[in-house]
């Protein structure tokens, strides 16, 4: 099972060069049943990553391009009157897919954003009075562009909190970019990717994650981290209980990916920047982007043992 996961990672790494850590975190996020927010400049490989994940894991993929005139119905689907049967027939929207890429989510109006975010939270959608379950697994990768914010609706903190992780891919390293330019990789190779997992296996793995052992000593460490965010003066506000649950779930998935059935402090530290970064703000800059330096402070100062 773990060898399969490792080969998944290797496959994706062949497409997305030099981003092993981000790929591993993205897979961790999925295994922990969380949603992912990718924040990066255009052209950094966000779509490639989503596609590659979908293909390798054998998931149905849909892409929703968020624009200012996108309506909730465009995401969820609408009922259309069928003259022959004399009934309304529901045409499901793009959200009824297993892996959704919500591209440039901050371009849509808050109304459309919240339609997606509600679906993410509930795992089901209610359209015209009928509740329809979303497929399982259901995994959303939303992207947003940190620059050129004109005419966008930034996600408020409450909605950021619903993403398990926030990642940014960043520029590729020199060697990776050279390989890219030489045509050895990139989106062209996407069709070469073969599904390595199937639904059943993915569900099995996801069910395995909560059984990863978390000892008292480790919970103490997580509590120390969370308490530090709540009591230290440089934090504008602390991590929510949802945040601490997310931290623990992600740590478990990371430990599982690393081939262990127990969590060690290093697992927590590995996922902390991605899990906590978008949930924390500096007191000096509460409207800012998030707590890179705060997370570094937590990693450095909070006693790990």
């Amino acid at each position: 099972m773990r060898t399969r996961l490792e080969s998944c990672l290797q496959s994706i790494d062949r497409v997305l060069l030099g981003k092993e850590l981000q790929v591993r975190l993205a897979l961790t996020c999925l295994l922990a049943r969380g949603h992912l927010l990718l924040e990066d400049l255009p052209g950094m490989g966000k779509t490639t990553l989503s596609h590659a994940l979908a293909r390798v894991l054998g998931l149905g993929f849909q892409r929703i391009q968020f624009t200012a005139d996108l309506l909730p119905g465009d995401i969820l689907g609408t009922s259309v009157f069928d003259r022959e049967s004399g009934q309304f027939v529901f045409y499901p929207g793009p959200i009824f897919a297993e892996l959704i890429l919500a591209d440039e989510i901050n371009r849509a109006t808050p109304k459309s954003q919240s339609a997606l975010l509600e679906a993410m939270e509930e795992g089901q959608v209610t359209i015209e009075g009928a509740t329809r379950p979303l497929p399982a697994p259901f995994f959303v990768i939303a992207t947003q562009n940190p620059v050129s914010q004109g005419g966008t609706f930034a996600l408020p903190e409450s909605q950021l909190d619903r993403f398990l992780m926030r990642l940014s891919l960043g520029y590729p390293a020199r060697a990776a970019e050279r390989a890219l330019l030489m045509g050895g990789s990139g989106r062209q190779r996407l069709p070469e990717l073969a599904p390595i997992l199937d639904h059943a296996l993915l569900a099995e793995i996801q069910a395995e994650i909560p059984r990863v052992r978390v000892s008292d000593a480790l919970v103490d460490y997580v509590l120390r981290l969370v308490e530090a965010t709540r009591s230290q003066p440089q934090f504008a506000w602390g991590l929510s209980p949802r945040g601490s649950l997310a931290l623990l779930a992600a740590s478990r998935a990371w430990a599982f990916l690393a081939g262990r059935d127990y969590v060690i402090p290093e697992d927590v530290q590995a996922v902390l920047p991605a899990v906590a970064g978008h949930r924390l703000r500096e007191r000096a800059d509460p409207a800012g982007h998030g707590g890179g330096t705060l997370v570094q402070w937590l990693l450095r100062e909070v006693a790990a043992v």
Partner: protein
Amino acid sequence: MTAAQSGAALQPIPRVGLTWLLIAQLLVILPHLGHLPAWIVGLWLGCAGWRIQIFRMRAPYPNGRVKAALMLGTGLGVYLSRGGPVGLEAGVVLLIAAFVLKLVEVRSRRDALVVVFLGFFALATACLFEDGILAALYYLLPLAALLAALIGLQQSALAANPWATLRLAGGLLLQAAPLMLLLFLFFPRFEPLWTLPGPRERGVTGLSDSMTPGDIAELGRSGELAFRVGFEGPLPERSRLYWRALTLEHFDGRRWSQAPGAQQLEPPAWEKRGEPLAYSIVMQPSNQPWLYSLDVAGSAPDDARLMDDFRLQQRRPVTQPLLYRVVSWPDALREPEGSASALRRALQLPERGNPQSRAWAAELRRRHPQPEALVQALLDHFNREPFHYTLKPPLLGRDSIDEFLFASRQGFCEHFSSAMTFVLRAAGIPARVVTGYQGGEFNPAGNYLLVHQFDAHAWVEYWQPQQGWSAVDPTFQVAPERIERGLQQALGEEQGFLEEAPLSLARYRDIGWLNRLRLSWDNLNYGWQRWVLGYQGEQQLQTLRSWFGNADLRLLGVAAVASVAAMWAVVALWLFKPWRREGDAQQRLFRRFERLLARHGLQRGPGEGPRAFAERAARQLPAQAGAIWAFVVLFEAQRYAGREGAPGELARALRRLRRTLPWRVGSG
């Protein structure tokens, strides 16, 4: 201090906490005002103002230089105004100054807690100066304010509401009341291990250890209380109430003082006769070591001894109200044999002076060879001749006895007793002056006697073979109403009673309701002193004995101490939870592992996980990498994977690592 600690300590002070702190400070300092130098009050006002300005962000915190200057100035001020850093008063001034100054540099909650605790301590020292019933009631106010400040300093929902804070503080005080009562009843009162210097009461009025004409008349103008007496039987007649303080045997022609030999401790010989009188006395502080009693005190309180002139004296001066019980034998026969040294002292006269009196004494002696007859003749003389009892006698010259007996014939009790003793001695009869108090005011509200300073009196004792010492009072011959009814009646209308003490309530005894009020209030104070302040030592033992029968009190004390210790043990267990430390054997071993590697230059940062640390250590010490990994893997397995493993296994891994490392002593 790491950033985490400083962050926790630097919690700001809420407004409510600061407000209550300022109020509490005012309330704590108020009872101290009587013995504080004025500059402390100025210092306090300045500091409080500064503190408020800091809170309003109009003024900065004091910097190091200002603080040092303030500290030096305060120390110097204490030194100058109290003559040194030693002694209770100087200590209290220093304490209050610290209490006041600390307020200015209070930045965080921890500093404010220091101020609150200083306040509690300063309040406790106030009890050393004033422990009356009103003061005790008043102390509840600063106590509540200090508690309110303590509550207000905590970040809670109450932090915004001063009244809710005060209400909670009051509730806490009420809850503490039963505990206080229990401690009051059962907590043993230990004798202090060191002598606590009592407050130096300036201007305590009372008898002194010598007597010149006019001294007691001076006391006659004071309405202050000297002591209170509760009799266990019926109240004896007023004319029998001669409260002995001390005996004056040495006369230098003008001044009567204690003979140097009287300080020797030599129990006098006496025989019990007649019926005893039992009573207890609550004495006001006199700053003198002698106690008051009726003759002859058969049982003395623990700390006191009966001296050879029949006075009671304790080792230390009475600086606190003192409760003691005495059984006296008024009809006892005192020193029928007479000790040679005592008789020699009782016949001492100055070489020269008062020739007229000496001649008269010789003549009396010739006419009345029996001492009793001579004494009677003297008393008759005072009764028959136009002697006048007055608070304002004319000043007397060098031969004071002559002038008084044959010229002025106006005097107060000290004139009469001094003249009579002189004449008796000149006639060869051993005699001495006794000073003390006579009579007292009966308080029907509490069934006890109030003895004031204006009841101060002096009378005469003379000695004759077989009969021993007997007391006579020449004042009785001149002004019998002084003995039978009291000074106010004796002075009559023309001489104002307590006219220099217009605020003394005792002056207005004629106004019925005021007098009743005064006596009831005094009764309350009497009860307070007897049952609250006086509840210690013997009295506590007696009370406890009456409740627990004759149980072994030492056992009871041990049980009390043991139960308190048990209570503390439970609290300590609850606080420190030693059973939680069981899993921390791993942590202890990990700390040892860290120290071991620290000696080889590897410091683990607080946020560095065990595995990351091991990786770094293995890179730096490649030769020991195997042992390092062995320990860390085992540690991880036990601590995080939940693998059962004895701590011994981990300790063995650590020992193996230690053996592979070169031996080095370092900072570890």
